[in-house]
């Protein structure tokens, strides 16, 4: 157990070291760390024993018996932690040469947060690592340092912290009702739990932070973000939220709505971010169904999705690294002096990686996306809106990824500044290989599934259905390629009604807030100046009384036989006090109150 906890504990020492070590040592240390992560992943896959560990106990133990930082190996946590460690190992390898030391250090912290949430034994530990993940993942965006990124990071932080607060309220109410911190289904405050977890898991109106944040981060950090944040939300939904029709429906709506938005995007990473929301919708649907097959499918999709989405972000990152842009319009129709050979010839490995990722995400047989989507479809079979919505979302996904590959790699002719580094390409190859290996031999991951569903997924009907979905996506793409191309080249303002709507809502909110701020500060300044005037007058009067004894014109006129008025005041006050004291000691009643009351 201590071994699998190393990703949680080691960053305390390793992360500061990464910042301060010189270049070579830093890379060596990070490489060691990556190997350690890979080893942890393999260890989890080979079947770690379930046991509990308590590391640090806190003040709460005195009153509640629950210690802070206590971990346990739940079947759900094993599969989630496997995904986190494996994919972040790939992601760190990808950024080994190109990410800044601060980015790498914070990424280790983010992994600690995610794995900590996965292994948490009680709500306290859970909440702590939840907040660690919130802070570190936002820090990854802040570290980009540009004004736009900082603005987006603030928005993300705002939403995430709100979610954390909702979760805290939920946990307080749960503790009040249940009297225990044990990580069980909430007994009270379910709404707060749904809202709190919903922010992380990108439930529909709350999903906006994903397309805000992910494209704003530096490109190696996007890989880490894509692997961790929303997946932790899914894990929490599986572990804590009681399953229900509503959640399953929310998941399938996420899947279809986000795909629609994704079709309209013309930035590589924005498009991928909307697909994250969509794919998370699949997982939420599976988890919300609550059946053994559904939960297994959801969690398996969690791992598979992490692998291929990281791969896609890596390929997009390679495009950004090579050309300096991620806008499909620029890539496709560069200015004359900046055009070059077709991009897929320049970066063949990244293109191949993107292709594998695209095939996996659309659920093509022999790739890992097919496996989990098959299980999910089996779980959703016969549950009417969910099944249909997921099928439609599948078509949308393959359509949108045809666009991604076609315009982003094959037809792109932007000049290249430099080629991807070796480690970037190695990471892409490794991730692509894992996509294919787990797709061809799905039984490799059977060991991890909490309900031990058998992964015999290659049936004739399954394969034909999947091929039909992918094929219809491709056919629609072939028919609408011209239209999509025009969409890419349309001016940003006219891009689409949906994009405008998506932007109008936050702008409206910001305008309302700004107006309230104006009103508030106006009222405050009025109140403040009024109060200041009153106080200044009062204190000036006092200071006259105090600092110029015998010289005030007012008090010179009222004097009685050479005793100044201010002296007189003092004498009277002391006299009154002395009188009261005397009255009290002699037991004379001074204050009378109405005896009738």
């Amino acid at each position, binding site marked *: 157990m201590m071994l699998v906890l190393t990703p949680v504990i080691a960053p305390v020492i390793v992360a500061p070291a990464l910042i301060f070590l010189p270049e070579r040592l830093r890379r060596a240390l990070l490489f060691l760390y990556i190997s350690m992560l890979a080893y942890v992943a393999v260890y989890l896959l080979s079947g770690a024993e379930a046991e509990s560990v308590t590391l*640090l*106990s*806190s*003040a*709460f*133990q*005195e*009153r509640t018996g629950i210690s*802070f930082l206590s971990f346990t190996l739940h079947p759900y946590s094993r599969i989630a932690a496997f995904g986190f460690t494996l994919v972040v190992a790939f992601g760190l390898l990808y950024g080994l040469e190109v990410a800044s030391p601060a980015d790498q250090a914070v990424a280790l912290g983010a992994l600690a947060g995610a794995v900590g949430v996965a292994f948490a034994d009680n709500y*306290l530990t859970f*909440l*702590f690592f939840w*907040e660690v993940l919130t*802070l570190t993942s936002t820090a990854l965006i*802040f570290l980009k*340092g540009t004004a736009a990124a*900082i603005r987006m990071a603030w928005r993300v*932080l*705002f939403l995430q*912290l*709100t979610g954390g*607060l909702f979760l*805290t*309220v939920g946990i*307080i*109410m749960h*503790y*009040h009702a249940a009297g225990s911190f044990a990580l069980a289904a909430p007994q009270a405050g379910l709404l707060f739990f749904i809202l709190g977890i919903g922010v992380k898991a990108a439930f529909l109106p709350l999903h906006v932070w994903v397309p805000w944040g992910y494209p704003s981060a530096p490109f190696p950090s996007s890989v880490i973000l894509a692997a961790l944040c929303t997946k932790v939300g899914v894990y929490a939904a599986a572990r804590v939220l009681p399953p229900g029709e509503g959640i399953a429906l929310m998941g399938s709506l996420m899947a279809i709505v986000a795909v629609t938005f994704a079709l309209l995007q013309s930035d590589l990473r924005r498009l991928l971010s909307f697909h994250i929301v969509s794919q998370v919708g699949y997982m939420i649907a599976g988890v919300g169904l609550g059946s053994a097959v559904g939960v297994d499918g959801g969690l398996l999709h969690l791992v598979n999705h992490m692998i291929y989405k990281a791969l896609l972000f890596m390929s997009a990152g390679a495009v950004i690294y090579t050309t300096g842009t991620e806008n499909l319009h620029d890539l496709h129709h560069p200015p004359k002096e900046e055009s070059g050979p077709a991009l897929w010839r320049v970066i063949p490995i990244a293109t191949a990686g993107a292709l594998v990722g695209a095939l996996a995400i659309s659920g093509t047989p022999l790739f890992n996306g097919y496996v989990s989507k098959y299980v999910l479809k089996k779980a959703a079979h016969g549950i009417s809106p969910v099944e249909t919505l997921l099928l439609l979302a599948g078509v949308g996904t393959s359509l949108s990824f045809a666009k991604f590959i076609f315009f982003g790699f094959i037809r792109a002719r932007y000049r290249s500044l430099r080629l991807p580094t070796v480690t970037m390409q190695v990471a892409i190859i490794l991730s692509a290989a894992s996509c294919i290996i787990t797709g061809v031999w799905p039984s490799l991951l059977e060991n991890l599934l909490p309900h031990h569903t058998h992964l015999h997924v290659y049936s004739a009907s399954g394969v034909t259905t999947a091929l039909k979905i992918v094929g219809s996506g491709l056919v629609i793409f072939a028919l609408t390629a011209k239209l999509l191309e025009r969409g890419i080249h349309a001016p940003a303002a006219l891009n689409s009604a949906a994009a405008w709507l998506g932007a109008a809502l936050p702008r409206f909110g910001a305008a309302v807030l700004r107006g309230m701020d104006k009103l*508030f*500060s106006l009222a*405050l300044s009025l109140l403040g100046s009024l*109060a200041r005037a009153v*106080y200044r007058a009062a*204190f000036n009067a*006092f*200071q006259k009384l105090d600092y110029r004894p015998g010289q005030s014109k007012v008090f010179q006129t009222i004097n009685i036989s050479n005793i100044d008025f201010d002296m007189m005041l003092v004498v009277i006050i002391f006299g009154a006090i002395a009188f*009261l004291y005397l009255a*009290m000691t002699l037991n004379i009643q*001074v*204050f009378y*109150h109405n005896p009738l*009351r």
Partner: protein
Amino acid sequence: MPFLPATTVLIPLISAGVIMIFSKTRELYLKIFMVCSAVFALISSLLMYPAVKDGGSIATGTGYLAWPLSFTFRVDALGFFFAMVFSFCFLLIIIYSLGYVGHGHARVRYYSLILLAETAVLGIAMSASLVGFLVFFELLTVSAYLLVIHEEDEIAMFAGAKFLYMSLAAGLAIFFGLVTVNYLAGRTDFVPGGYLPASPLALYALFAFLLGFGIKAGMFPVHIWLPDAHPAAPAPVSAMLSGLSIKTGAYGLIRVFHDVYGIGLVRELSFDRILLALAVVTILLGSALALQQDHLKRRLAYSSIAQIGYILLGIALLTERAMLGALFHVFSHALMKGTLFLCAGAVIVQSGKKYISQMKGIGFEMPLVMFSFALASLTIVGIPPFNAFISKWHLALASLESGRGVLVAVLMASSFLNAFYYFPVVITAFTPAEPGRIRLDRIPASMLWTTLVMALFCVGFAFARPHWPVMLASRISALMF
């Protein structure tokens, strides 16, 4: 050892006198003497622990004035808790001051006054009756006033005058309450459970107490001195005012509610509801106003108003768990706000920057100080499991238990606002103005390590085992109800 309460108060008092008398000796000796006396005061207050931990008390009598106006030093568990926090934070603040005022003017005046202020706050915690309380309360007013105007510029004089007049008004209000209590009951000492008979006059006296202690604590309608006095004072004095001095107001309220009036009478006069409403306004107003400040110390001052609101909330709920939350928040807020003010002082000493908008990239020039600032702000926001989370947790549970769920919303809203006025400082500090190397802080060593120690205590106390501050607070609150 019955002399301990008296020595705890008298050591700093006598030292202050000695420093005044021998002000012409070499300054190094004075500094050593000052630190030694602060250490002895700490030791003397900690030595009382075995006697008070099970609800006992130690008393030292003096023959000053005849009964009922005699004042006696007595310590019980509650007084010990406050004395421990006060003397510990004072030790760190005094060591920090050595660096902060080290090259300024009027150093000897500062040294003796800060020891007088320590006498005053410890005396408040050690008093056995309202009379002693008032004497030390006035001593605190005078010494804190002179410390606030230490810079002697126009801003400091104005803020100091405001502070002085309002504190004097507070003293007079408490004096009125004291006289009335003595008239009604014939005694002024603190007795667990209270002794005051119900009478209309008691209502006026309680109002006067609320006004007096409220002014000291920075409660909503009378908080106005606080945001002026804190930025004008030297940083260690701000830390002292915010971390310790305003807690004496809360301490007075606890004593008056529990040991003079008794909670039955307070409920009958429905003052708990009045205080509750004021506390809620204090929390929200303090947080909302802090959000608008650009002056760092002013922002911290408004945040203090919000945080004292938590403590008042815990007092007003009149339940055991709420009292636990309030007491523990006294402890955690003293450490957190102390750290934050010490960091602000360090920033002023090294770079002269007072406004948050000027602090871009300052985290790379003084990494250790800003790291402490980040730790303290994480704590104050209430990220589990650090100190403030523990107190907020108990306050939230207590408000649920007393059937006022809306208070949880108030607490959470305030936490949220906390995040939004503390994180920008940290983020601005660690956003580089231009790419540059990290350098180490260039401030006197005594300032650096006291700040660090305080910051580490903010976080570290969450992991103390056994966690004796929480144990002590919970035992005290169990004794009170």
